[in-house]
């Protein structure tokens, strides 16, 4: 018997193309757009510039509310002069905010590039403000800056801070880390309860009242692949991570559930039994989209860090052929289970040099390019079908019932192209 060299069995062993050049991605502040909706008793106060405020507004698009639960304290010329002043200014703005918005239970001071470059110490500010406002309002801080974080890393930084602040708890328990849309979260909790896990803790907690702790008997599983820092923090707190493919599509969801079940001594047969119906539904829904996706050549630009699990879903469950899978960061422990399910072939790239990467896109002329909003229309104008990646972050795509929708997000641009009989110039 010949033993295949390990390097050929999957992308887990593939060499990684590391690039360093112009990045075309959002900064971590963007995560505030979905985090503030997940935590209805919170407020996110960015200490930043007009640019940060403009980014939040542009990323939020048309969702304009009376007074959203986020805002930017814009640094002005006078703040840049003296540091003592800036700390006092923060106190004043927070005081004003909390007296006007008495419903705020969790206040996040979010660092930006300007606040970090002038070395404004927000952990000091959070500590000081906590002494004044806790327990009525807990004050946290994390960085969403573009010099430290990329897009979804904002959620990672936020969750890592929350995990760090959890009280010690030695109970045998399961924490699920990662923000999900409510409808998906409910489905997940139902699935877990069906296999016998009903007391499940969530990070982020929906409200400050959802008291959870962490300790050596805590097991943590992740529903988002971009939680590298959170992973490291829970490890430091003594918790035990559960690694699995991420719950996208039928196969991903089943593998994820089995990994969790395994940790809690639940027989995989139980998982098979209770998931039979939703698995069949997911299979059927994806099959309907598979016609459009099978054999299609896909290029994923680095954006949300969802790229590797999504590439697994596209190749393993939709039959797509991968050309390149880019990711801003490759967190090995979290993504290995998905990487090892991807057959060798595609380039796995970490980081970005956008011009060079676009050269590769143009050379390969993929059937579908998954990319950010700034690139989508320009590539379409070059005759290349695209799927804008931010929709994958904002839409419910996890677990069985969304498997068809997820495949549909990729299939729709292709279907649309086939439908249109007038060419765009």
């Amino acid at each position, binding site marked *: 018997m010949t033993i295949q060299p390990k390097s050929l069995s999957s992308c887990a062993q593939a060499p990684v193309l590391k690039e360093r050049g112009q*990045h075309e*991605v959002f*900064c971590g502040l963007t995560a505030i757009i979905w985090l503030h909706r997940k935590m209805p008793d919170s407020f996110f106060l960015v*200490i930043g510039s*007009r640019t940060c405020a403009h980014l939040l507004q542009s990323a939020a698009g048309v969702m304009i509310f009376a007074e959203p639960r986020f*805002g*930017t304290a814009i640094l002005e010329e006078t703040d840049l002069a003296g540091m003592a002043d800036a700390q006092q200014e923060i106190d004043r703005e927070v005081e004003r905010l909390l007296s006007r918005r008495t419903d705020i239970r969790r206040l996040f001071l979010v660092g930006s590039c300007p606040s970090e470059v*002038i070395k404004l110490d927000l952990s000091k500010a959070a500590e000081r403000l906590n002494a004044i406002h806790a327990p009525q309002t807990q004050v946290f801080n994390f960085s969403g800056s573009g010099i430290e974080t990329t897009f979804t890393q904002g959620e990672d930084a936020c969750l890592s801070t929350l995990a760090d602040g959890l009280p010690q708890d030695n109970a045998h328990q399961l924490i699920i880390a990662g923000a999900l849309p409510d409808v998906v979260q409910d489905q997940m909790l139902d699935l877990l309860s069906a296999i016998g896990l009903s007391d499940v803790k969530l990070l982020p907690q929906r409200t400050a009242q959802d008291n959870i702790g962490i300790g050596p008997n805590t097991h943590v599983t992740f529903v988002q692949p971009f939680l590298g820092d959170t992973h490291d923090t829970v490890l430091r707190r003594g918790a035990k991570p559960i690694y699995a493919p991420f719950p996208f599509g039928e196969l991903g969801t089943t593998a994820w559930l089995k990994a969790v079940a395994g940790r809690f001594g639940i027989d995989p047969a139980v998982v098979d039994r209770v998931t039979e119906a939703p698995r069949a539904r997911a299979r059927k829904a994806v099959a309907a989209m598979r016609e459009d996706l099978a054999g299609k050549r896909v290029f994923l630009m680095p954006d949300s860090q969802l790229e590797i699990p999504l590439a697994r879903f596209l190749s393993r469950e939709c039959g797509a052929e991968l050309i390149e899978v880019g990711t801003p960061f490759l967190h090995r422990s979290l993504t290995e289970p998905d990487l090892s399910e991807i057959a060798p072939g595609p380039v796995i790239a970490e980081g970005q040099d956008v011009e060079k990467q676009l050269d590769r896109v143009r050379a390969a002329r993929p059937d579908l390019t998954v990319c950010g909003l700034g*690139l989508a229309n320009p590539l379409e104008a070059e005759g290349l079908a695209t799927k804008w990646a931010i929709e994958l972050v904002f839409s419910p795509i996890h677990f069985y019932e969304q498997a068809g929708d997820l495949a549909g997000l990729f299939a729709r641009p292709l279907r649309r192209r086939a439908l249109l009989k007038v060419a765009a110039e």
Partner: protein
Amino acid sequence: MKLAVWTYEGPPHVGAMRVATAMKGLHFVLHAPQGDTYADLLFTMIERRNHRPPVSYTTFQARDLGSDTAVLFRDAAQAAYDRFQPQALMVGASCTAELIQDDPGGLAEALGLPVPVIPLELPSYQRKENFGADETLLQIVRALARPMARTAHVSCNLVGPTALGFRHRDDITEVTALLEEMGIAVNVVAPYDATPADIARFGAAHFNVLMYPETGESACRWLERNLDQPYTKTVPIGVGATRDFVDEVAQLAGVAPRLDTSRLRLPWYSASVDSTYLTGKRVFVFGDGTHVAAAARIARDEMGFQVVGLGCYNREMARPIRALARDFGVDPLITDDYLEVEARIADLAPEMILGTQMERHIGKRLGIPCAVISAPVHVQDFPARYSPQMGIEGANVIFDTWVHPLVMGLEEHLLHMFREDPEFNDDAGPSHHAHGARPPEAAAQANGSANVIWMDEAERELRKVPFFVRGKARRNTEAFAAERGQAEISVETLYEAKAHYAR
């Protein structure tokens, strides 16, 4: 430090991008962190541009700060030149890079590129987007425009239209046609679709048409001083302003004023009996200074509205807008804090808002119809069809756009006549809109003059008043009662107030 939730203007480097993106053959190297690349989507998504903005970002990270961000900038500038081969290179810093003081201008100069390098100073912590656009165009013109022989035939440049501008694309077409009718050729339009080589030809024109003072005034002033080119002061939005513009241009060009009004419909549409219901509609006007000044004049003189309040978000226009407010006998509101704008609107309870996308949202919340007259823009402000604001067609477009959110005249009658009819009932809203706005009454209520009590019967009577005037009826009655020291409102009070305020 100032808390901002929604802002009317982006930072100054976004203004610079609006100029760069409008142009061809120019490249902009921006010293900025990766997150600032979000600005690309403003152009590719909101304006549906089919090209990436010609902008390279250095995307420096925290770990670069200790070492050498200047090297990063130099390399990015060289790489951008090599790849894009622009006719001119612009360099600048975003808010973060401004703090690290790498001197992009000096670094780019030192590269010795064979094309002009235009450094920009964009004070991020003091100024905003419009300033950035205006300043950028000024620097481009300064760097490239030189005195030269005038064209034999009378010609002008159009100055100010940028990428992401409110209807700039179509205004160019309209104004070009206006000028052509008078026998005046357009030499260069800038920055929209201009190349650096075109900017170099600026001096051949006899005068400049300043389309948008927000983005073109500094360039026009410089050209007046240095190239001896006078520029127009009238912005041709509205019938009256278009006529004034034609007169002004005729004088500058030394030709006879000529305006073909065969396609002009606003005056007749406004005079026709169906428009009677527009009489005295109380409107609040807010946006950039230029569009507000134009809209206020149209509202009063061409639509027969009553302007109950006006203001602008760009401080650069504070002075003319204050003067305008005096002329209209109202309090000017100069602010970029949308909460202040919302409070003022709630307070004035107008029947209609002429504003920006921000006021459209305020209007939605307060149940007041709104027509959009100014940037900041939204994907809706880039319609596929031709819809300028300037000139003859602009006036027609404005008539339609402003009337659209209001209940049509005939429909207003029907609402009175068939108050109980389900199809015309109060909650239905204007029938040509899929989703009716919330009754303005809610706005007045939210605003709360809670110290007078409505008796049940009066409350019921009030509900019979059609929704689009109910807010006003409630407000007037409460004011009437308060003035007379009445604590309760009866049906009697309601009708007394109605008689009192009858116009």
